[in-house]
């Protein structure tokens, strides 16, 4: 980090923003004691992949889009599968839907655990990073790694491989795991549930700045379960719309300082997707153990402090463990073990939409297919591009009330504020340069 005089003011720079997945850049401009501008360049939408998808066959998008992100490949696959199946007018049977939810639980466990323990917890415990945290509290980091490993085991068994699952295809899976394999996994997940509950207890004991934000929340919602692999849209201002109406409700606008598009909700402007939105719009859908854990952690039915997202993420790890155990038990009790692992998805001309809840928030994809299944057009709207405008808005208010802090501390707190959203920037840009430009 450098600190050099510029005229009568100062210019503050940090070379990298640590512990955010990937790289990007942030610039805060302060004039006459007021924050005049915040620019975040953390994320570029996967335009390369959209272009690459055009001309491909209709069975290819799940595998190709899974390569966009090393942290959330399942989210890309699942949204792609749903969009292609929608375009072809095919619904999958319940056992395929259940197995998809189970696989997705693995990704939630792994991604949330990575963020909670290795990226975000050091902020709250006063360590520069996970290595220093591990030196003083090996038991804490070991618990995180154990949880992450359980998520990995689940993704490897159901998805075929922990990163870029190869067992997923349009219409279902190449094979279902056997009850014996699920039985072995169940034991590991039982331990993971205990670790997840301990994670909620740990996170709820952290100190949080008083920073309630009045963001518009957008999430999927289902008739019964906490939204993961399915649902239709609801918003905190009371709107509800189908996945196929995404384009009517949400527009993406170019902003000058970034290659990214900023998403806007009709009549509302910037909005937030992700754990805080999901939780606040689906508190009544939490499974029982997660609900108890949320209550014990002092989370109300809604959560509006982005810094408390670490507690909500921990509760969602409980959701994922609890749901995974429920699905495995139901699977073993039922007849689905003999069911075909996939259905045929014959090509036809049409447009299809798919949205699922990636760990970081709703991930939407839209495909236009020709009669032979060739992809004519593809659109991918990941969660981070939807959250970017709200992160900037948070930083504006956050920095304004902390201008008295020294450079190093202000920079550190800005980084923590960005990490609240677990931005996934690994998909596109390199190198985050943080600049606080105070004049």
């Amino acid at each position, binding site marked *: 980090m450098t600190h050099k005089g510029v005229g009568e003011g100062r210019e503050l720079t940090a070379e990298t923003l640590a512990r955010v997945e990937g*790289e990007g850049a942030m610039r805060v401009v302060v004039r006459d004691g007021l924050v005049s501008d915040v620019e975040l360049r953390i994320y570029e939408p996967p335009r390369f992949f959209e272009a*690459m998808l055009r001309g491909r066959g209709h069975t290819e998008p799940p595998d190709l889009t899974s*390569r966009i992100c090393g942290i959330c490949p399942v989210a890309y696959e699942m949204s792609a599968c749903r969009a292609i199946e929608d375009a072809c007018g095919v619904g999958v049977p319940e056992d395929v839907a259940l197995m998809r939810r189970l696989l997705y639980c693995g990704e939630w466990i792994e991604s949330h655990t990575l963020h909670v323990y*290795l*990226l975000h917890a050091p902020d709250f415990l006063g360590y520069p990073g996970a*290595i220093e945290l591990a030196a003083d509290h*090996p038991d804490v980091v070991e618990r995180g790694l154990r949880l992450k*490993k359980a998520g990995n085991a689940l993704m490897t068994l159901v998805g075929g491989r922990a*990163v870029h699952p190869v067992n997923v295809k349009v219409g279902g899976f190449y094979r279902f795991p056997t009850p014996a394999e699920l039985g072995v996994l169940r034991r590991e997940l039982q331990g993971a549930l205990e670790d997840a509950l301990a994670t909620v207890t740990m996170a709820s004991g952290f100190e949080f700045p008083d920073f309630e934000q009045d963001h518009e929340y957008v999430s999927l919602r289902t008739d019964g379960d906490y939204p993961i692999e399915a649902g239709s849209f609801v918003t905190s201002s009371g709107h509800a719309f189908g996945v196929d109406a995404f384009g009517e409700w949400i527009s993406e606008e170019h902003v000058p300082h970034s290659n990214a598009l900023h998403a806007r909700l009709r009549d509302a402007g910037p909005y937030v997707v992700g754990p805080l939105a999901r939780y606040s719009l689906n508190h009544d859908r939490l499974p029982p153990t997660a609900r108890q854990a949320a209550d014990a952690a002092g989370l109300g039915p809604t959560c509006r402090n982005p810094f408390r997202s670490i507690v909500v993420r921990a509760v969602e790890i409980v959701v994922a463990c609890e749901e995974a155990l429920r699905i495995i038990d139901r699977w073993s009790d039922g007849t689905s073990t003999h069911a075909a692992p996939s259905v045929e998805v014959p090509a036809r001309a049409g447009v299809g939409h798919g949205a699922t809840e990636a760990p970081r928030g709703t991930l939407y994809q839209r495909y236009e297919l020709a009669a032979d299944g060739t992809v004519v057009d593809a659109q991918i709207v990941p969660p981070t591009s939807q959250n970017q405008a709200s992160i900037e808005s948070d930083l504006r208010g956050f920095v304004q009330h902390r201008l008295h802090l020294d450079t190093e501390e202000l920079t550190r707190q800005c980084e923590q504020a960005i990490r609240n959203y677990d931005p996934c920037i690994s*998909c596109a840009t390199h190198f985050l340069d943080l600049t606080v430009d105070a004049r």
Partner: protein
Amino acid sequence: MTALVVGIGNGSRGDDAVGPVVAERVARLGLAGVEVVTHEEPLALVEHLAGHEDVVVVDAVRSGVVRPGAVHVIHAGAAPLPRDPVALGSNRLGSHGLGVIEAVELARALGRLPRRLTLVGVEASELGVGAAMSAPVREGLDDAVRAVVDSLREEAGL
């Protein structure tokens, strides 16, 4: 106990693919007692480092001080690895908040380091999304495979 070769990198990002590509070439050699895995996420290393005596990690690096395709060999000893941009697998290189160096140091803090750990880095130039591996790095693949095999032989006393 077997030796382990871990290739780290993203196959969709130009020269970042070099770790997995080198690891796969080593796998095809079918060396006895050598297990090979590939990962995109460097933190996966922490899980792999425990349980093996001899581990070789292959990753793309960008030091800027040598030509693309050149091979760096670093032995992780008693001292922590330098966490600066010229070091192998630093978090300034990859698409990861936590890079290979951080994964190794995290494993060290938790007492999970193998008895012998070698990092083989291949100097990268092209890291764009969707880019192909650059010609200099393709030409350096044989050197990198040789560096991995030499490291394994050294340990086996061959």
